[in-house]
């Protein structure tokens, strides 16, 4: 079960011609796939296209009705490889994953696919996770399109354009026998809007039908000498065919006047921010009608030379608006203009920064600079000489704390890293390598565990150099998602085969949690269409791991600490793998809360746990927070003149996971923590017994109070 359910939205995917679809970009893409008679879809989750996978999963019934096969692939490589179905068969296929890291994983299959070429339209929908809010290294998928010679579309970020680009991609792919990568930027995936629907199409040839009469074509196999022919085919036939199609179908767009000394060239994905900057410069209206010639590349690769040269013809200068580096397009364009002996100046990087996202301000400054240089007369006076001085905004950089993402309240991974921190306090610092997933948050304060991350499922592999062991053992972390994605072979297989004397900790939270709680082979949930409940420990045994410890409740900090200690100190020389299992709290709460409140309504006996801190016992050292960082464990200032520092405080968002109590106990911190379990609908006897206890206790309390001074007024209040 994914973090977000699209069951309701999916109904809109049934809409036919005449009706209008309103919603998120992700859903629009799905609808477009169905309207274009896709035969099979698949992919691997990851921001920003996680929701696309979730939508497809929730739409499985509809897909079934249309004879479309949906595969939740094991990795991006598996997804890309699935497109092989379109090599021989005239079936349209689409897979999706995250760029650029997903593309890295998929590149092997992509290169082979691009070499073979395709009969059916094959598209790869890549969520380009670049710039603000990105969770990965800053790179571009563009290079892969160039090196493998497949085409890259980067449509304008509005629903009609995105929907159109899906159809264009299929058509372009078929016209040029080349796979097409459709790139949607992180915000385009979640942008909302409307478009006019068309009827969904059954695939002319379904994958089932294709199985009935298999086809093969020797010339498609990537083997010499055919692979040499593929290379020539790419250059002599597929590329020209693509350029022809792009030109004839007008996939790239021009806006603004034909004439003009200074022109702009931008990628489709950047269109809106370019227009916004033009609006702010007084060079475009709200509807995007501009005073300057603008060439919009909805096809980022290949460039259509004739079309671009034609646009540049007679212009004093053009500005290439291209984010990131290297500036692949600017370089190609420069070569074109130079070889054509053009006198048009090419501007780009230099006016724009070489690195980093083109935010609104960067775009504004860039265009402003360009026009001041080449077409100052266009700029209204207010822009050329702003009469309003830039407002003085106070500097808060020393005040406002950074707020990076971290573990959710009650996260089962927190006690794992608390235990590791405790073990390191005993046995000293260790070499620790991290992986991709929520557990990577452990690299941040308060845990500061894990020095590097080399990729998904590569945590243990990235410790390979230390497999020989030494005075201390290397530790690596890997999530259950990464384990099934790539870890079992690349990390565990590597450890076993090389007799690694190091320790791997597998964080098993029942889901691919960081990407939105999608099911994976070891998920505990029952899934109608997928095979779950395949224990990681069994896979480890099968792979040849002898030393396996399974902890089925990560919140048991003493046990967790003992097992980690054992792994680091045991005389056993081979790979030591710890599987630490507890359900992702985000998903668990989503599942249990409704059931629980229903049970309370129905009068069933329900205990709801929550933790608390005795504020008069807590001394405000915050050691507990340095072993937790839980959002619900915060601070509170008491209005007690004798107190200097705020005390720990647990707010009502606590889900009673028990980490703080366990840690306070295991680390011998302090006696401030308590667990309160409110019992709903207790039984009659239970109520009676409780009241008896209560009466006895209050009698004792009254008795003592009578013999001493009691300062009831002294109970410290919370400061507002």
């Amino acid at each position, binding site marked *: 079960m994914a973090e977000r359910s699209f069951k309701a939205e999916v109904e809109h995917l049934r809409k036919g011609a005449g009706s209008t679809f309103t919603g998120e970009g992700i859903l629009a893409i799905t609808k477009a796939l169905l309207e274009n008679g896709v035969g099979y879809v698949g992919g691997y989750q990851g921001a920003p296209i996680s929701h696309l996978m979730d939508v497809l999963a929730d739409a499985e019934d509809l897909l079934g009705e249309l004879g479309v096969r949906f595969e939740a692939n094991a990795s991006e490589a598996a997804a890309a490889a699935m497109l092989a179905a379109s090599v021989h068969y005239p079936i349209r296929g689409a897979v999706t994953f995250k760029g650029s890291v997903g593309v890295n994983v998929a590149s092997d299959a992509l290169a082979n696919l691009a070499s073979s070429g395709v009969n059916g339209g094959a598209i790869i929908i890549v969520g380009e996770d670049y710039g603000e809010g990105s969770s990965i290294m800053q790179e571009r998928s563009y290079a892969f399109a160039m090196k493998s010679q497949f085409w890259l579309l980067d449509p304008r970020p509005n629903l009609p354009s995105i929907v159109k680009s899906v159809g264009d991609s299929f058509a372009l792919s078929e016209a040029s026998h080349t796979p097409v990568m459709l790139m949607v930027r992180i915000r385009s995936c979640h942008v909302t809007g409307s478009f006019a629907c068309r009827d969904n199409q059954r695939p002319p040839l379904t994958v089932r039908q294709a199985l009935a009469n298999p086809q093969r074509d020797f010339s498609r196999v990537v083997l010499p000498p055919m692979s040499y022919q593929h290379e020539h085919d790419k250059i002599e036939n597929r590329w020209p065919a693509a350029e022809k199609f792009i030109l004839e179908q007008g996939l790239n767009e021009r806006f603004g006047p034909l004439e003009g000394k200074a022109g702009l060239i931008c990628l489709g994905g950047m269109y809106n921010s370019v227009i916004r900057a033009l609006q702010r410069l007084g060079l475009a209206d709200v509807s995007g009608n501009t005073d300057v010639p603008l060439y919009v590349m909805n096809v980022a690769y290949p460039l259509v030379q004739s079309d671009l040269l034609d646009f540049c013809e007679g212009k004093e200068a053009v500005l290439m608006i291209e984010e990131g580096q290297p500036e692949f397009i600017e370089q190609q364009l420069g070569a074109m203009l130079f070889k054509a002996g053009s006198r048009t100046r090419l501007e780009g990087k230099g006016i724009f920064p070489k690195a980093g996202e083109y935010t609104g301000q960067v775009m504004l400054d860039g265009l402003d600079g360009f026009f001041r240089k080449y077409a100052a007369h266009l700029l209204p006076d207010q822009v050329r000489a702003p009469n309003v001085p830039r407002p*003085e905004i106070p500097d*808060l950089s020393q005040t406002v704390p950074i707020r990076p993402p971290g573990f959710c309240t009650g996260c089962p991974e927190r006690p794992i890293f608390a235990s590791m921190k405790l073990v390191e306090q005993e046995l000293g610092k260790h070499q620790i390598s991290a992986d991709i997933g929520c557990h990577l948050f452990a690299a941040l304060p308060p845990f500061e565990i894990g020095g590097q991350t080399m990729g998904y499922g590569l945590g243990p592999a990235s410790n390979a150099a230390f497999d020989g062991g030494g005075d201390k053992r290397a530790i690596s972390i890997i999530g259950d998602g990464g384990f099934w994605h790539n870890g079992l072979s690349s990390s565990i297989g590597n450890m076993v085969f090389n007799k690694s004397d190091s320790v791997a900790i597998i964080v098993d939270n029942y889901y691919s949690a960081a990407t939105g709680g999608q099911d994976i082979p070891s998920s505990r949930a029952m899934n109608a269409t997928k095979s779950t409940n395949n224990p990681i420990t069994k896979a480890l045994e099968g792979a040849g791991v002898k030393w396996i410890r399974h902890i089925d409740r990560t919140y048991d900090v003493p046990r967790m600490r003992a097992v980690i200690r054992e792994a680091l100190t045991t005389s056993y020389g081979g790979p030591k793998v710890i599987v630490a299992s507890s359900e992702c709290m985000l998903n668990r709460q989503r599942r249990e809360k409704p059931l629980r409140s229903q049970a309370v309504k129905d009068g069933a006996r329900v205990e709801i746990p929550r933790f608390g801190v005795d504020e008069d016992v807590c001394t405000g050292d915050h050691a507990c927070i340095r072993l937790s960082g839980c959002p619900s464990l915060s601070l509170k200032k008491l209005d007690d003149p004798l107190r200097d520092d705020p005390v720990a405080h647990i707010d009502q968002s606590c889900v009673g996971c028990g980490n703080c109590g366990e840690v306070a106990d295991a680390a011998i911190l302090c*006696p401030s923590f308590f667990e309160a379990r409110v019992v709903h609908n207790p039984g009659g006897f239970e109520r009676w017994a409780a009241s008896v206890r209560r009466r006895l206790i209050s009698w004792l309390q009254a008795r003592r109070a009578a013999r001493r001074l009691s300062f009831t007024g002294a109970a410290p209040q919370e400061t507002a």
Partner: protein
Amino acid sequence: MSIELPVTAGGKHLGQDSVIKIAILAVGGQGGGVLTNWIESLARSQGYSAQATSVAGVAQRTGATIYYVEMAPGDVPHPVFSLAPAQGDVDIMIAAEMMEAGRAIMRGFVTPDRTTLIASTHRALAVSEKMVPGDGMADADEVRAAAETAAKKLVMADMESAAAQSGSVISASLFGALAGSGALPFPRAAFEDAVRASGKGVEASLRAFAAGFDLAQHGERPQPAPAAEAPAAPAGPDKVLRAWGDLMERVSKFPARVQDMAVPGLRRVVDFQDTAYGAEYLARLQNVLDRDSADKGYELSREAAKYVAVAMAYDDVIRVADLKTRSSRLGRIEQQMGSQGKLMTLTDYLHPRADEIAGLLPARLGARVENSPKWMARLDRLFSNGRRIRTDGLRGFVLLFVLGGMRSWRRRSLRHAQEQAHLDTWLAAALGHLPQSYGMAVEVIRCRRLIKGYSDTHARGLSKFDKVMQGARMVAAREDGPQWVVRLREAALQDEKGEALDGALKTIQSFTA
């Protein structure tokens, strides 16, 4: 609404100002998505075209995250909206937390020429603020001050508790504040319809909406000051009350500034032990007071009144047990858990260390035990796996109750002897700086702040305290000695391991050596 655009009003393209740009800066999990959907459907229901974007994914796991909405009147043909907010180009900035408001200002999304800033003043502390051993909380007043200069219109109130009191979440109260701010050209009813249309928990959401709306219109009602420290006269047997009266009598003779601290100090000490102990406290205080002077404003005595009380009411097993078995505690917990009248179980996580147990023994015996590794090991084994005590159950309660009742025994315990010794040396060290350096005396007194916590934490605090005292001795003779002690103390509270402190000490050594 009218928005001046200093940079854009020009060109022959009027009307760009008909686009309304709304950014929402929230902490992951605050429901910024819901708020965004409400705003979007509100705009559409009012015949506007609207576009919303967000950056979902890992960025939302408790981290700072941003949502963005743009809208334009329906008569504008095919408006082109931006997908991200730009500096100096935001009309309405909604910040779901105080520091996020600060972040919005930092990022240039709040400008005096156009931005209506709607911010919740509550704090969701960042890890970096919470993990500091001392007080690492960021200064909200700086953000407020910045907001007042940066925003064109400012709506600031605690939207979190406004929502909580209505049994809803902050997205609803913020939506209400947006309506109440009048920043959008839509009637209140339209906002409420948007909430109704969303279907889930409508009633609670509407209550929170109304609260937010009201806060935006009238601001926060000045809270009646929480029963200004008029601590109710203590209750108890007449004999003890008379003794207390005498003590208060003595305090009343102290200078006013000293009384401010001496009264709560006395309460703390007597509450910790008994009136006799309170008398000792006042005696110690008197001793300081005798060497203090009015022209210094009795600074020394005031600080002594505070820290001597803290030192005398140290955190031992007996005190913890006592505090955990008082009736006032149960009341506080029930109020915290909202479980009045409901049945509730209570489990306390206790894990005393061997030396805390040894501390309970009579001074001599305890000392011997403490010096015998064998015995300490035994005690450790005995208490090694922490105790989970059901304080709502009779067995658990009585155990703690008996422990808590050992106050009469306390004065004979090893821990008491140790604490007294430590207290006297510290006090002597402080007063030793008189009369030459009053400032040093005051700062040394304040260093008691470093000692807090239990077990390892307590040990760490002690070692930091010792280091600072050692540093204090090195700078004692210097003109700027006191400032150095302040610096050392603050360094000691910066990080757990005391790296900052060691650094500061090195600096001192460099010029004292």
